[in-house]
């Protein structure tokens, strides 16, 4: 029983981790905290739903198209709403991304209505017995997919030209420009990748939560996960998110419903009180 809760906690945590990584990538590249990350996930999931309907349920076609569309949306958001405000104060950025989240939610509501829709699972939901635990391929698939995605991100950021360039730019924009690195391109990449991560997360978690315009609230949980991890470190965000997912699940068994809902918030407050810069802390960045 305990093992099962941990596994499903890890699965949900893995999804949080993907969204959280999206946050961090945008944050490291641009100092922007993207309050619309959850809504990007929601829109990506709806897009996939529609594409699945159009292509007769084929994930093979729908998923790549969804990723592409998500990237386009993310890049468009960056281009028109964020780029004019490079260097603006935190407040401005917060407001803009909140505004973006509202626009996304509204548009989604108009296109798809505010009803709740079931979402087909990309992996089977038939329970299996593994090492005495009852799990579903979906649960394992969530963890595995997230793992693969993270591995790909690792390779990208550490072994490719642009990935390294993004890391460089996030540390020192001036020096990055002097290398000939286009900051505009870095921004585009950051938002495109984050949008895709959000879409993948949505596709993985939607069978469990169903698709609806309020789905974006998962963003808050991913936030909590990212903050637990210090909001600046990739491994931290992953660890924090997994921790949150598992804790939530364990708490579900032992705490009243209300308390469980507010657990991410309590964790955030707890961590910030004890360590004002998150568990893993954060380096100081140099900006232009």
């Amino acid at each position, binding site marked *: 029983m305990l093992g099962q809760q941990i596994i499903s906690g890890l699965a949900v945590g893995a999804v949080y981790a993907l969204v959280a990584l999206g946050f961090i990538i945008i944050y490291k590249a641009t100092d922007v905290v993207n309050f619309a990350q959850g809504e990007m996930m929601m829109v990506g999931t709806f897009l996939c739903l529609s594409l699945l309907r159009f292509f007769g349920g084929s994930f093979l076609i729908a998923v790549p198209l969804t990723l592409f569309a998500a990237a386009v949306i993310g890049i468009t958001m960056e281009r028109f709403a964020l780029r004019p405000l490079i260097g603006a104060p935190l407040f401005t950025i917060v407001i803009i991304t909140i505004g973006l989240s509202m626009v996304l939610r509204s548009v989604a509501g108009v296109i798809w209505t505010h009803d709740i829709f079931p979402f087909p699972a990309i992996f089977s939901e038939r329970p299996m017995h593994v090492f005495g635990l009852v799990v579903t391929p979906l649960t394992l698939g969530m963890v595995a997919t997230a793992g693969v995605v993270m591995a790909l991100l690792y390779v990208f950021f550490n072994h490719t*030209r642009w990935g*390294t*360039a993004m*890391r*460089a730019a996030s*540390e*020192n924009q*001036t*020096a*990055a*420009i*002097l*290398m*000939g*690195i*286009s900051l505009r391109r870095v921004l585009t990449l950051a938002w495109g990748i984050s949008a895709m991560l959000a879409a993948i997360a949505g596709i993985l978690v939607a069978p469990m939560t169903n698709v609806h315009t309020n789905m974006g609230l998962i963003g808050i949980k991913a936030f909590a996960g990212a903050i637990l991890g210090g909001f600046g470190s990739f491994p931290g965000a992953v660890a924090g998110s997994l921790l949150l997912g598992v804790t939530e699940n364990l708490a579900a068994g032992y705490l009243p419903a209300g308390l469980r809902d507010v657990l991410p918030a309590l964790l955030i407050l707890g961590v910030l009180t004890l360590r004002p810069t998150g568990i893993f802390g954060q*380096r100081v960045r*140099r900006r*232009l």
Partner: protein
Amino acid sequence: MTPASLLTIHDLSAGYGAIRALAGVSLDVPPNRIIAVLGANGAGKTTLLRCISGLVRPTAGRMQFLGQDLARIAPEVIVPLGISHVPERRQVFPSLTVLENLKMGAFTRRDASGITEDLERMFAMFPILRPRARQLAGTLSGGEQQMLAIGRGLMARPQLLMLDEPSLGLAPQIVDEIFRVLGVLADSGLTLMLIEQNAAKALAVAHHVYVLQNGRVALSAPAEGLRGTTRVQAVYLGGGRRARAGEA
């Protein structure tokens, strides 16, 4: 008569908000020479480099490199054009390794074999970097970081290398070594534009010297005639700050 210039700056003005950092600077950088730009803090030297490399947009004046007008070009294009700027205080990427930093220098290049060759050349020029290739740049000492920064700048195979106060905060032996390397680079055909507060060291290696004061060129003369004189100090003193020659 100077040979055809690599870089020509004509009447350049630039500022930050209400502050005018440059107020009509003109200078010439002929190919294959070391040009030193001296001056006290706030004289406008860093702003000059920043204008050239596209970080700051000038308010007036012209900058021409190999016949190309630099003002209208995006900073990312300046590097492939042949100008490399080693910024003040090194500014290496601290959480990238030495190797990654060097590779970032070659970001605009696509010739993989040429890049590998050049990496080897950098390690030959700065041997202390080789054992530290996989070390995080932020853990290097000041002198090592300076060498890394110069190496990073060289990885772009520039025609013009601009250095902003390479001797700042470094021990004299390291400064000597760095200036020795700069001399070697100039001998091999590279054009150098060197900003320094350490006038003595700069005078020793440069061919021509400009002294900036309050955003203007207060003195322009061949270095030979200035060595051992107090003319440079006089200009510094005139501006209200002493040039402490020989101090790192």
